[in-house]
Every structure is written in C-alpha cells, then in structure tokens.
C-alpha cells in the first residue's frame, strides 16, 4: 500500500435522519480533498478499517455525535481499547488501537463530531443538523487547505480551550 497523506472516514447511514451527517459532509467536501487522500464512507467503523490506516500520515473521522451541544466538535483521538460488547462496530480510538497492534503504528488522528439528535429510518436531516452541517463544511474545508498535524492540533486545542 502506498503512503497516503490523509485518510478520511465518513461514517453514517443516509437513511437514518441525522446519522447521514457523515456521508453528507463527505459528499460536500470531496472536491476539496487533497490529492492522494483516501475517502472511506461506510455505515459503521469495523475492524478492517484499521488496515486502511496503513501508511497514512494523518486520519480524520467524521461522524454524527450525540454528545455535543455545539454544532460540532473537533478533537485529537488516541488509540484506546474501548469496544462495546454488543455492537459490531468500533469507535475511532479502537480502530486506531487495532491499527497500532497490527501494523505497529497508528497515524495522528482527529475526530469531527457533528451534533445529531434524530435517527429515525427514512427521515432526512433535522432542522438543527441542516444548519450545523453548513458550519462543519466551512470548518473542514479550512482544515483541508493545510492538512498538517501541528496545525490541526492547534485548532483542536483552540476549540477545546486547552
């Protein structure tokens, strides 16, 4: 596998209300992705996604989030062993941890969580989510202008007030 500067995961189901935020944002930013970027759109994160990180210099996970009161959050993620017991899916930290165990390393990674509240089958985005995604698109496009770890870290620290 050749080295890729950036791997972007956009996670969600387009037929389940605000869960579509990840894939919808991906479609909006696709033309802004730097060359050689690998964009992966899927329902859920699974173990084999760890293999996509091989050779990556930087990773970005985009997903709907139920734990933010702001339109979106942006934070750095570290490898960790958390894994739900009944879910077939993994969290970003577990994907990174599997990558680290299997390949000996995981790239610096960041998570963009967009505020979500409704997940009903067949529904479109909620009114709130339609507004939030516009802010997130502008933010991600700015990130992609300069996909450098130090810059993203500074932005993440700035957003969390650290």
């Amino acid at each position, binding site marked *: 596998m050749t080295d890729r500067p950036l791997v972007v995961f956009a996670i969600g189901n387009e*037929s389940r209300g605000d869960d579509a935020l990840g894939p919808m944002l991906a479609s909006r930013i696709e033309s802004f992705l730097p060359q050689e970027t690998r964009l992966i759109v899927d329902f*859920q994160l699974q173990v084999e996604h760890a*293999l996509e990180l091989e050779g990556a210099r930087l990773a970005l996970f985009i997903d709907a989030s139920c734990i933010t009161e702001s339109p979106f959050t942006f934070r750095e993620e570290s490898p960790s062993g958390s*894994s*739900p017991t009944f879910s*077939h899916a993994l969290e970003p930290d*577990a994907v990174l*941890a599997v990558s680290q165990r299997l390949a000996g390393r995981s790239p610096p990674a960041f998570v963009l969580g967009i505020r979500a509240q409704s997940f009903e089958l067949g529904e479109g985005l909620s009114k709130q989510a339609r507004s939030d995604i516009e802010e997130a698109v502008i933010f991600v496009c700015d990130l992609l202008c300069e996909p450098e770890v130090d810059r993203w870290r500074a932005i993440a620290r700035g957003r969390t007030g650290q």
Partner: protein
Amino acid sequence: MSSSLETAENRGDLRRVVIDPVSRVEGHGKVTLLLDESGHIREARLHIVEFRGFEVFIQGRPYWEVPVMVQRLCGICPVSHHLAASKALDHVVGAAAITPTAEKLRRLMHYGQILQSHALHFFHLSSPDLLFGFESEVGRRNVVGVAEAYPEVARQGVLLRRFGQEVIRATAGKRIHGTGSVPGGMNRHLAAEDRDALRGEIGQVIEWSRTAVELVKRLHRSNPGLYDQFGAFHANMMSLVRDDGAMDLYDGTLRFRDGDGDILLDGVPDAMYRSVIREQVKPWSYMKFPYLQQLGPDDGWYRVGPLARVQNCDFIPSPLAEAERREFIDHGKGGPVHATLAYHWARMIEMLHAAEVIRDLLDDGELLAGPLLAGGERRREGIGIIEAPRGTLIHHYEVGDDDLVTMCNLIVSTTHNNQAMNTAVREVARRYLDGRELTEGLLNHIEVAIRAYDPCLSCATHALGKMPLALELIESDGSVADRLVRD
C-alpha cells in the same frame, strides 16, 4: 421446552436487575432479572426492540429500488437483505429461475458475506470472552485486547473479514449500497482482474479458516465442562437445505428438526412459509416469537443460524467443512449438540465451507460471461428466503400494477431466535447467577450466551456517544441502587 423463569409471581416484591440500552439507536437489547431477597433468580427476560418501521420504509417504493433500499436497514448484513429482496422480487418479474451466471454471482456474493460476517463475529465479538475468560478484566475483553495478546489471531481475523468484503465489492459493485443483484438476476459479471486477485488469496483464506476451526475445537477440548453445558437446552431447529439434504445457504426448502434430531417437516417451499410459521406476541416484548404452527407456541419454537444449519443438513457439499461437520456431529454422541457455545464451532465450520465455495466458484468461467437476466410473466407477489449469517431471513412483498410495493413483511434471523435466546438467558441465569452476589463478570455470562447467537441489534446506525449497554440494579422500591455504563 420449559418456559419457567419467564414470568415470576409477586413480581412487585422482587429486586430487579436491568441490562439496558442507553439509547434506541444502538444496542436494542435489554435483559431484566428479578431476584428475591436471597438473590435467587425468579424471572429472566431478554427484550429486543424490533424496529417495525422497515415495512413502512419500503411500502410505496418502486419494486426495482427495493434490493438497494433494504441494505439501509442493517449495517451488519446488508448483502443478506439485498439478496433476499432480489430473490423475492425474482418472482414478481417472472424469473423464479434466474440464469446460471446470475445465480453463481449471487452465490459468490452471499458466501463472501457469510465469510466476512462469521470472521467479524468470532474474532471481534466472541473471541475476547473465549480467549480471556468470561470474568476476565473487562477493559481487556475486546478486540484490542486480543490484538495485544494474540496478534496473529487478530490479524487473521481482520484479513478474513477484508477478503469477504472484497468478494462483496467485486460482485455487488460496492461494499455498501451494492447494486449488483436486481430482480431477475444480476447486472454485472465478475471482472477478470477481480477474479484473479481473489484467486490469489483464497488458498490462504482457506488455511486461516481451518486454523479458526482448530482454535475453537481446542477451546472446547480445553474445558468440555463449560463448552458442553453452558446454556445447553433442547430446541427444534430450522434452516434451508438443498433438495438432496445438503447445506445450502443461498437457496433450498425449509426443514425443521426436533430436539432429538428427528425431522419434523421437510421440503417446505418459500411460498409456503406462512402456512408453517406463526408468530406469537407477548405483552412484555416488542419482538414477536415465531413457532412451527403444527407444534404450537409452547413447543414449536426453534433455533436458526449455524448451530441449527450444521445439524439440520445431511451433509456439507465441500470436503474440508464436511469432515469438520462429521467431527462436530460425533461430538454429540448420537444426539444433536445443544450447547450455546457450540454456535461458535458451527460458525467456524460454516466459514470454512464459505471459503471452499468461493474457491470453487472462482474457477467457474460462467462468472465472467453469460446471460445475466431472466424474466417472464409479471406477478403481484414474491417471497424470498435466504440463510443470512445469523439465520433464516424471509422477505415477502406484494407489488401493485403501478410497480409500487403495497405490502412488505420481513422475518429476520434474530426474531426467529427470540425464544431460543430467552431460554439461553434463563438457563445461564439459573446455573451461574442464582443465589450469588452479582458481579460484572457473572452478568457477562448472560451476554456471552446472547452473543453466541450473534443477534443483530444495531439497525445500521452508529453515532459517537451512543453507548450500547448500561446495567442498573434497582431495589424493590424502584430506587436505583447502582448503575454501570458499558463503553
């Protein structure tokens, strides 16, 4: 087929333990245990919130969109829904028999799905419990812990999973929202370069699958007392089998066996499913309880999935898996194997079979050329049944003259296993939890029993911050004594 522990007397006087989902989005399972003052289990129930919006989601859509749309119902087994819907709608377009090329392509896609799903379940969800122990440190009991302690096992699991996903991509067009299967057949051949790439890996995939069967057999041998008795109970079995009695996960007729292994009903065509299967409603559960009509709800419930399929068929039509099936059958010493943990053994035998089927199909030139579509007299109704990774999946549609779906009924694998999973929970609660102080490790025994069935609870969504399970201990006065959130 006792239903004891299903409903306790004087329920209001009992202490309640709830293993409950935090949200409706992910982890739609909830377990409630009622305990008396001495800690004896008086009632145990598994509740699964079955999302009944499926039918509404599908009704009113053009029938040709359905095989693609139904993949959005489930993020875990979208290919099974894709193919079951296609099989049902084959009848609507008058193509009860599709072309040989189309059937082989669908089979390749389906066995790729079986392989990747079984690999995911065993290596990701179940192996942590089996390798570390049910009461081992909870923070280690996950795929990351396996990758740390058993890196080669984890690596093979991930690569098996990826191979299956590549088979799906090569046949369906994409890993998700595939469009390869359509009513009446397929819309693409296998590309020669994809065939060659998959051929290059299949030998290794078969070897890894054999290793996985050996691993699960070694686990059984290491602790036969646990593996043969944990959650063991008599149950009927149901699955598709081929006309000659062979295991067939793509097509066939329904066969039912009783708990002694005797055939109850055989050769039931898909169109007749409603005449043999009924569904019981219980006031305490959202999910229905299917049963074989001729035996009634108390005695007619059954298991589906690998443990049923491996024992319901007369043979597996691939040599390595058939040899493993024979060893599995011998393990029962003349009777069916009913131990819940034997699901894992049976599942790995099926994974090996799937790898052998894929190998054989890749040698078939008809995958690369030949007619893809069949048709005939238009009909208003179609029923398709397939053996999804976790069990029998039924899709049933009615379509109006305007080509819009007017009726949709799905019976998914997890619903078929509803009573069996409840019985497993009760058996485990009775044997391991009764009268003891409840700890996370002991409660994990309940989860181990449920996980063996590989129930699909996720319904295709996963958002950050959605924790799948919480555990609450509630006193008889209703107050919460303790609460533990799983992450």
